[in-house]
């Protein structure tokens, strides 16, 4: 059940494979004390009971909560201003007649139907633990009204667990008799959506009050409709009273500590770490100022004398290269004529792609002879051009300090496909071949092993990259494990499928010194709107082989289509050069769609590593500053029984830009996938540098979304 964050999308965006877990949740967020707090379930509400409130849009909160025999760790995300989702990992001791502990994963959704007005409360409907084994399964409709900005009252009706104390026969029974009884959940292997039982069986009322006594302190009291029946029956916990009391204290901008007195019998505490992708430490970042624009002297535009001189081009290449290098970028190639220049740049610093383009344009005003009026800037990654942005020098001169300069430059810029842009371009001397390397610590994490819910391996990693020629790259990394316990996991792989991912702990145990990857990759542009990659070698720690990919992405299209075909052979556990005797042809057809407003969807359909056929559905909320938070689910022809616990593969995905934390420009991002369960069905090859992510950033509408940074 170990997890390694997915391969980074763009080779130059070095994405350390450290663990994300709680790490990202300690990121700074603006103080948001709009009178809401989180429950012991890590959702917005009172002590145990939900309210109809929503968190600030995009708030991402981790909660650890403990009382009596229950510990819950929850990650909640305000997906849209009205919709929130939570993922929870709980441990309940003594949850069976034999006294064994229960480890449970649960998902919640809540939707705010109605906003609060002067005369009407906010109303929300929620599903708690609606996938899976259903330990916390319940549904509710809740209303919350603020009497003053600091005082809110909440009342609601709950079903399932929230209808278990002083329940009455279901009012929905008036519509249909089926609502009167709640069927026992046939949870099988867990993980299935159990809609048949929703809003059925006895219902009960709950309610409470929250009072924000000071800016930092909130007091809460509630009447709970959860009887904690099973906990009380088997365990040390006892529900003596339905009344709960809590206090929430903001100990730091984004850290809240809570204390609770629960069910007349026990004390508990919880800790909330709040963060928000929309609030980096420094808006706009603290990076160095760009070079100013050099305005041409009147008449300079018609002076063509320079075109006659010898060695001018080499000189201009060198000057441009020096300026770019001084700003963390690089010049790969240049093509110049009397009135136009095309520069191929590599941007390894600015995650906001328009910022790299804007800075390059300003540098060109410093260097280029006056007659050069048209600047075409072609960003390159892995030796292939991703788009061509053409701006007019006079616009750059005139709009530098214009109030509306960002929008006007965008409106006047032409963004086009760059497939043939390299014809006749001259590469900078000494650029290829090029060796780059780095040494640093690494961290790998494994989650949700009942024996040890969080396991970490750490050690040193040596990475190298050799650019042989544009688009031809040898890349490798070696890891030396120094400490850790992922390999100690000994829950045997009990899968009936080929064990393509369930032996990760053996890889961790036997691969003390591991060749993490060693590949030869070729990137090229087969034609307009087309991007291609072929990677061969030791592709990832568990598989080697050949991976090839073709992507169709017109420069201004919201839609992209991709095809990937791989031949993979499972590697030896020691992760040196040997292979085991499992091999498979795997591949997918993919469709990517940018829905706008920051929502990005993806469907991958094809054959997975264990030979199963199916599709993966992914939805990400992407922020212009580089963050993304998303979820995916994979359904294949492997039956839920054969898949095993969890029934199908699903997970949460995160991308955190380092610039969010540092406040300095950096195009490094930190990516991670959290899978509640890692099993063998629906598993994909982890190939480095898949094409879409690196291409997307330099295309519209993404360029447009962060064009405000053109003049940064």
């Amino acid at each position: 059940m170990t997890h390694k964050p997915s391969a980074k999308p763009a080779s130059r965006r070095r994405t350390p494979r450290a663990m994300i877990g709680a790490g990202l949740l300690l990121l700074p967020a603006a103080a948001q004390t709009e009178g809401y707090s989180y429950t012991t379930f890590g959702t917005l509400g009172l002590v145990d009971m939900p309210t109809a409130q929503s968190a600030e849009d995009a708030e991402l909160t981790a909660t650890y909560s403990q009382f009596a025999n229950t510990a819950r760790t929850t990650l909640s995300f305000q997906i849209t201003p009205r919709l929130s989702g939570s993922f929870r990992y709980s441990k309940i001791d003594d949850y069976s007649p034999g006294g064994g502990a229960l480890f449970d994963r649960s998902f919640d959704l809540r939707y705010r139907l109605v906003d609060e007005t002067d005369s009407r409360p906010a109303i929300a409907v929620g599903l708690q633990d609606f996938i899976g084994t259903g330990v916390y399964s319940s549904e509710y409709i809740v209303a919350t009204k603020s009497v003053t900005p600091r005082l809110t009252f909440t009342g609601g009706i709950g079903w399932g667990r929230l209808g278990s104390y002083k329940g009455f026969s279901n009012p929905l029974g008036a519509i249909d008799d089926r609502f009167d009884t709640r069927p026992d959940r046939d949870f099988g292997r867990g993980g299935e959506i159990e809609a048949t039982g929703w809003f059925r069986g006895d219902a009960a009322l709950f309610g409470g009050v929250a009072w924000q006594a000071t800016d930092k302190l909130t007091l809460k009291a509630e009447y709970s409709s959860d009887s904690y029946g099973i906990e009380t029956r088997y365990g040390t916990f006892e529900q003596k009273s339905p009344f709960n009391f809590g206090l929430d204290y903001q100990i730091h901008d984004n850290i809240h500590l809570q204390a609770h007195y629960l069910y007349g019998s026990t004390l508990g505490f919880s800790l909330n770490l709040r963060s928000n992708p929309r609030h980096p430490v420094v808006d706009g970042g603290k990076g160095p100022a760009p070079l100013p624009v050099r305005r041409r002297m009147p008449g300079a535009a018609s002076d063509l004398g320079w075109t006659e001189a010898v060695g001018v081009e080499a000189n201009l290449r060198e000057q441009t290269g020096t300026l770019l290098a001084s700003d963390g970028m690089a010049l790969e190639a240049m093509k110049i004529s009397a009135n136009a220049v095309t520069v191929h740049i590599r941007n390894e610093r600015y995650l906001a792609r328009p910022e790299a383009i804007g800075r390059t344009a300003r540098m060109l005003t410093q260097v280029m002879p006056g007659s050069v009026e048209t600047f075409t800037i072609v960003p390159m990654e892995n030796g292939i051009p991703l788009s061509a942005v053409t701006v007019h020098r006079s616009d750059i001169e005139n709009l530098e300090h214009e109030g509306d300069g960002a929008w006007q430059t965008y409106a006047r810029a032409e963004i086009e496909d760059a497939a043939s842009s390299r014809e006749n371009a001259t590469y900078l001397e000494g650029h290829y071949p090029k060796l780059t390397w780095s040494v640093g610590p690494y961290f790998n994490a494994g989650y949700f092993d009942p024996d040890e819910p969080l396991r970490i391996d750490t050690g040193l990693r040596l990475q190298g990259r050799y650019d042989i020629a544009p688009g031809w790259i040898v890349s490798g990394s070696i890891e030396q494990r120094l400490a850790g316990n992922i390999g100690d996991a000994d829950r045997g792989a009990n899968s009936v499928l080929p064990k393509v991912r369930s032996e990760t702990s053996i890889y961790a145990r036997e691969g003390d010194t591991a060749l993490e990857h060693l590949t030869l990759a070729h990137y090229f542009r087969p034609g307009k709107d087309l991007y291609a990659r072929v990677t061969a070698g030791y592709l990832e720690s568990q598989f080697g082989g050949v991976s090839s990919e073709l992507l169709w992405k017109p420069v201004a299209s919201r839609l992209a289509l991709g095809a990937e075909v791989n031949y993979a052979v499972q590697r030896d556990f020691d992760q040196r050069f040997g292979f085991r005797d499992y091999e498979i042809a795997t591949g997918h057809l993919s469709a990517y769609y940018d829905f706008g407003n920051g929502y990005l969807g993806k469907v991958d359909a094809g054959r997975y590593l264990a030979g199963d056929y199916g599709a993966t559905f992914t939805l990400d909320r992407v922020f212009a500053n580089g963050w993304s938070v998303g979820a995916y689910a994979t359904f294949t022809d492997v039956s839920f029984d054969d898949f095993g616990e969890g029934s199908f593969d699903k997970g949460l995905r995160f991308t955190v830009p380092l610039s969010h934390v540092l406040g300095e420009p950096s195009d490094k991002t930190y990516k991670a996938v959290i899978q509640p369960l890692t099993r063998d069905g629906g598993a994909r090859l982890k190939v480095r540098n898949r094409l879409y992510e690196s291409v997307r950033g330099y295309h519209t509408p993404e360029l447009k979304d962060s064009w405000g940074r053109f003049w940064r």
Partner: protein
Amino acid sequence: MKFKSIAVLSLLGLLTACGSGQSQQSVLGPIGQALLGFTQPASKPSSMADIRRQVTPEVRQRFQHTSLMIAQLEQNERASILVRKGVNRNVETYFTPDNISLSVKEGVLVGTRGLGFDLMSSDVAEVLSGLRHGGQAVRVHRYLDGEDQIVIKSYICDYSGNAQITENCYGKDHSFKNSYQMSGGKVVASRQWIGPDLGYIWLEDV
């Protein structure tokens, strides 16, 4: 607690890797390096007066008589010298040795870069007229928000005084009061508001 140490560790992983690819090259321009000589952080932060004293004719000579300016954020103890690196029509852009830039249009601040929470641009055409003739002006500021989107703020300002002009501005969320010391129809020193996060900056020609 466990979480925190892990977070710290993973950040360390991000920050401590070293190698040939990760050039942390200095972004100081040649002018900045020349300047470092006398703005090296001293035991005590230099005040605007200290810097004014240090700008001797020899120093001006070293910068080939480029325009210089002294600036200090009100929330910061250290003042800094700035050298003019760009002129675009009537906007001059000045740089500190550590590559923060300020752009002024006839003495009125229209942009900052590198401070964080920067003023991305401002429309001050009416402000310039207000400084000359008094009356009322509309001033528009643009900032980047946390999602890199441009946020527009506008203010209504009125003017009083002659040699020492006070500009009183009111907006939806903030109000501020700038002051300008005029000499020969030009701004020679001023205290101007950048934005809600950075507050005021003192500017002075030298």
